[in-house]
């Protein structure tokens, strides 16, 4: 059984079908890429999988449980973490605090324990801080833990979002254009990081990306969306040779930021 099984996923906005009957799987420990021209519905898939949108039809089974009836924080609690295309870091919080918020579901300190500063809460906080520092070191942000997230350049904000998502302890990680705005060196670092997450942590990763070097370089499976429908699914080299895919890409401009 795949870790994530998306079946017949459909959503309309004001009568316009943004996604129509999209199905695909993501296996445990696999990197899958979701590609397609602008407006194909890639980010919409993420917004559905994380509960920000409600589908008009379809299911998304995570380990046999349908995510699509759940609200966002319940989905997060089940181990689905994401980043955002136009970064959504907590701008006026420190880099460290951003990652600490990411650990929200793993901590249990409540209102009263927080007010009273109970020993249990203090211990838990100290552990959380250590974990956050480890994660920041892993994504290469160990030196900026105390600065405001807003003051980081875009490339580092994107890595911060990945660290925050990892802090959740996810089973499935959704990366929305992680290489957007990165230079080639940063992109290669990112690819190394993503491979490490798959090989060392056994994470399943679904990535929306326009950068074909990254898509072809790290993914085991590519799903192509076009006008809200699945155009193709398969191994990277198969998809790259698929005439329908080539037609879709050449027929409409691509490579720019998604709408």
């Amino acid at each position: 059984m795949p870790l994530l099984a998306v079946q017949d996923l459909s959503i309309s906005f004001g009568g316009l079908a943004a996604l129509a009957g999209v199905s695909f799987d993501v296996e445990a420990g696999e990197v899958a890429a979701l590609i397609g021209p602008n407006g194909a519905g890639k980010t919409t898939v993420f917004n559905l999988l994380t509960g920000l949108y409600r589908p008009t039809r379809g299911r998304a089974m995570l380990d046999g449980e349908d995510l699509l009836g759940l609200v966002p924080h319940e989905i997060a609690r089940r181990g689905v973490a994401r980043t955002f295309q136009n970064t959504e870091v907590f701008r006026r919080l420190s880099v460290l605090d951003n990652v600490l918020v990411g650990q929200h579901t793993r901590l249990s300190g409540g209102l009263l324990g927080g007010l009273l500063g109970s020993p249990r809460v203090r211990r838990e906080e100290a552990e959380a801080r250590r974990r956050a520092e480890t994660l920041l070191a892993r994504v290469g942000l160990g030196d900026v833990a105390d600065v405001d997230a807003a003051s980081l350049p875009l490339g580092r904000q994107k890595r911060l979002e990945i660290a925050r998502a990892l802090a959740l302890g996810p089973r499935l990680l959704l990366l929305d254009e992680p290489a957007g705005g990165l230079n080639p060196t940063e992109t290669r670092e990112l690819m190394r990081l993503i491979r490490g997450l798959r090989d060392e942590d056994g994470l399943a990763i679904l990535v929306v990306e326009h950068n074909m070097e990254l898509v072809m370089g790290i993914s085991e499976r590519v799903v192509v969306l076009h006008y809200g429908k699945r155009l193709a699914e398969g191994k990277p080299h198969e998809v790259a040779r698929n005439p329908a895919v080539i037609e879709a890409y050449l027929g409409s401009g691509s490579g720019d930021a998604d709408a």
Partner: protein
Amino acid sequence: MTRARLAGAVAAAAILLAWPLVVPGYFVFLATLVLVNGIVALGLNLLSGYTNQLSFGHAGFFAIGGYATALLTIHAGALPVPVTLLGAGLATALVGLALGIPCLRLEGLYLAMATLAFGFVVVEAILHLDWLTRGNDGLRVPVARLGPLAFSTEASRYYLVVVVTVLMVAGAVNLVRTRTGRAFLAIRESEVAAQTSGVNVAAFKTAAFVVSAFYTGVAGGLFAFVVGYLSPDAFDVFLSVDFLVMIIVGGLGSVGGSLIGAAIVTVLHDSLAAFQNYRPLIFGGIMVAAMLFMPGGVASTARAWRRR
């Protein structure tokens, strides 16, 4: 804690403790009011500065805490004052819960309108429950007691307020550094990212209302003891605006800023007593100036200066 901070803390503690011994009685009263308002500002800041839910109705919570304390002291005079204040705080927190849940659906201007209306409703309720609150005649508040101790002098009430303030500040400092406080801030910064990080936004927004009301209710209880007399006209909408001015001038999302803002507004009020009619004008002007020239309040301006 660095040596400089430690020295600062010791100096602040010494000033706080010695204050009634070195200044005339009136300034003891004024300092007491500063601390009472400081607790309100803390509570309001947790809601508005930390969680981005603007309230124009905190005079209502303040009144509920005050009347609850007065009524508890009148009808259950044997209760020690910590129990009375805790009871008043919890009663106010319950009202905060009742207001917070329907307010979940509101944001920005609409939330401001709803809380504004809440403030008016509280005053009307006090007027109409005159069998309990004595309406416009006002309510005389008996002296606070703790066993054999009676807080009948200005200085003794000052020390009572100091102790409660220290506890409330410590609670707020703890809270904002832990999971709950971070969830508040995350909601302020990005509700979408907070949700997808696993924060139950509705629950924490409501929790912010409850904590905020608790703080303001306890402060209202202290206020009742400090002034010794309550009447509904003391809790008008201008008081709610004053509380907002405190946190805007002091610094949204800052514990220290809440206290500084409370001090500035309270002392300014006192020195402008002769110009009572111009109060809204003067405070409106201060608020606009603070937003224009110190958008982060005194707290962030001070931080920026220190970094130079």
